[in-house]
């Protein structure tokens, strides 16, 4: 997951220095006619996505084409922060992984619409702007998932995973009644906002399909869109299903709490299956889609983001080589399989499940009637025309854990959107 808060100024200086060095090194390499023969690729580095695994992923491509691929990790806290800094410094990489174009960076990104292979990549339609494709990926990461501890559910007398919000409320009450320390686990920083949004995607898109467009054209407000979800969270805080300590606990620790058996339900995207597979809990883990109001609508549209998104910088030192690399990464079966081992994702028509947890997610993805893009998407026809949605959403939503009423938080969301959209 690349959504993280930023640490810009110190990073900018380091970015400048590192990228300058990288450019200097890369520029001296020989290469094919008309290009440097070297592609610098900025990628997300995490516990799962290590430098070694990235090197391993691109090694067959290098061997086959003779193009040298230089893997670069973010010099700041995230790729989202590093890429604009490098653009400002004039040292931007050729291929960028893990982020999407924003209104500011989109003019710097190569239009891939003319490439037939780009049109056939997963979710390319949902991420296109007026049919223009400038980001491609290998699959989707399901977002609206709630992982649960089957032992704790049995202990609480819950026989079936909830399908509706009312059933979820009943399940949380039963978990609390049976003595579960944290019936539902939220986490700090970016996770709070993402978790709350993830849980609301299905019902939100049942009620207002393409809600981002409704907000953008003024027929709805951001506050209206999220107030019912905020009210649910507010009720849970009041009931003690989640406490202020949760939103001061980092996601890694909260995931460890779930694995230790202290958390009944943990809302998180499909990438959590990689963590579960690496540290399998002693209990059986279940997963269900986020609920809807009416059982007849279940399962609702599944919130999903593009997995392993890649962009090519317009003006890359060797555009052809960079485009070849991206084509390889999103179309080559071996490359796709390697990426599935690095971080879980789902892809229609291709079984890339690597463990029991990702297989459970695959079942839910296949049962979903449609897919919906989240509010923090920065590109495409469904993008909100503002920057910084998730950080602001997180900041305001955390107020619920401090006793702020849902209506006040919703009003602040609307005010923020209005100020940002006009400013």
């Amino acid at each position, binding site marked *: 997951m690349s959504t993280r*808060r*930023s*640490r*810009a*100024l*110190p990073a*900018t200086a380091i970015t400048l220095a590192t990228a300058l060095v990288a450019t200097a090194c890369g520029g001296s390499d020989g290469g094919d006619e008309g290009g440097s023969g070297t592609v610098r690729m900025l990628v997300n580095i995490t516990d799962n996505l290590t430098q070694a695994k990235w090197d391993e992923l691109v090694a067959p491509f290098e061997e086959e084409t003779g193009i040298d691929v230089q893997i670069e990790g973010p010099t700041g806290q995230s790729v*989202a*922060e590093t890429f*604009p*800094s490098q*653009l*400002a410094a*004039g040292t931007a990489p050729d291929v960028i992984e893990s982020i999407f174009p*924003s209104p*500011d*960076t989109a*003019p*710097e990104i190569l239009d891939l619409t003319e490439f037939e292979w780009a049109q056939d990549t997963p979710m390319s339609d949902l991420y296109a702007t007026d049919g223009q494709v400038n980001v491609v990926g290998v699959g989707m990461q399901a977002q609206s998932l709630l992982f649960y501890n089957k032992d704790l559910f049995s202990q609480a007398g819950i026989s079936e995973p909830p399908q509706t919000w009312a059933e979820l409320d009943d399940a949380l009450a039963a978990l609390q009644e049976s003595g579960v320390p944290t019936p539902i686990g939220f986490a*700090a*920083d970016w996770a709070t906002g993402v978790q709350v949004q993830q849980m609301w995607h299905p019902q939100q898109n049942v009620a207002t399909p393409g809600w981002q467009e409704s907000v953008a054209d003024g027929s709805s407000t951001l506050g209206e869109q999220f107030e019912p979800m905020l009210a649910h969270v507010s009720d849970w805080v009041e009931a003690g299903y989640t*406490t*202020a*300590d*949760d*939103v*001061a*606990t*980092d996601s890694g*620790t909260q995931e460890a*709490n779930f694995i230790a058996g202290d958390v009944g339900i943990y809302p998180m995207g499909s990438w959590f299956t990689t963590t579960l597979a690496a540290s399998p809990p002693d209990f059986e883990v279940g997963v269900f889609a986020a609920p809807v109001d009416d059982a007849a609508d279940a399962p609702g549209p599944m919130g999903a983001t593009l997995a392993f998104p890649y962009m090519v910088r317009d003006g890359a030192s060797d555009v052809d080589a960079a485009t070849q690399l991206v084509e390889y990464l999103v179309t080559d079966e071996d490359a796709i399989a390697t990426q599935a081992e690095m971080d879980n994702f789902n892809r229609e028509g291709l079984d890339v499940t690597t463990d029991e947890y990702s297989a459970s997610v695959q079942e839910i993805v296949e049962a979903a009637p449609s897919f919906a893009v989240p509010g923090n998407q920065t590109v495409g026809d469904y993008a909100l025309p503002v*920057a*910084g949605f998730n*950080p602001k959403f997180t*900041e*305001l939503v*955390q*107020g619920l*854990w*401090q006793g702020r009423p849902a209506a006040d938080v919703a009003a*602040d969301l609307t*005010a*923020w959107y*209005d*100020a*940002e959209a006009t*400013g």
Partner: protein
Amino acid sequence: MAARSTWTRGRDTLGALTLTVPAAAVYVVLMVVPVGFAIYYSFTSYNGIPSQAPEWIGWDNYLRIITDPIDEMRPAVWVTAAVALIGAFLVNAAALGLALLLQRTNRFNTFARAVMFYPHVLSALIVGFLWQAILGPQGAVNNILAGAGQSTLPFLSDPTWALATMIGVIVWGQFGVQLVLYLAGLQAVSAELQEAARIDGANRVQVFRHVTWPALAPTVTVTIVTSILSLLKVYDVVLGLTNGGPGDATQTWAYEILAVSFANNKVGLACAQAVLLILVAGLLSFTIIALRRRAETGAEAVS
């Protein structure tokens, strides 16, 4: 004679210029030019990407900061004011108190001085992460409390506690420099005057109040100004310790510039926020120096 005098003056001027111009050039290139760019960008709508030219928008960025339509800057200014004022007081109190305890040179004090300075050697970001691990909801302290059957404390999960915790951590990370300054200042206090006061019957408190403290006035001015300037731009500790949360409870002015405006490519707005921070820092510094002038005059008299 006149020709020789002119030649001498010219040689002196050339010598002065030779010594001054390189330093002035470095200062202009590294300080004046960047600040000049920041001031220019503060009047533009600019996302920091060179291929997309800045658009002149006059005072709009400043108006947005002053009108604060979404209540972003006001909380950040209050948090920064609390950090700067309370933090500066605590940093100086801790540093002066410890300097008085450690001013005599012996093995233990030399070791203790090194230990006290050590937090400042650590990166501020690491200081933040370190104390997050100690004071977080499942940190070392709360684990001990929970293990002893006590209720845990909301060091980082309650807004008021989080701000107090953050100030405490910042003080812990910063007082080492002020300690060194106070130790240096104490070395310069006249031992004869202190001895004379003691012979006249003054006790320890009286010697400190009437001799040591007045003589330390220039040091106090320097430590207050440097600590406030440093605290006004606190960012890394915030990032490591609370990341501005819960909510916006610990977001400082610098955090607003770097983690909110810059992060969202609002370079013009970020520059306007930075320019205002520079003005506030300058105004505070000059005010403190002016207010301290009388005390420093007294120190000269004591010397």
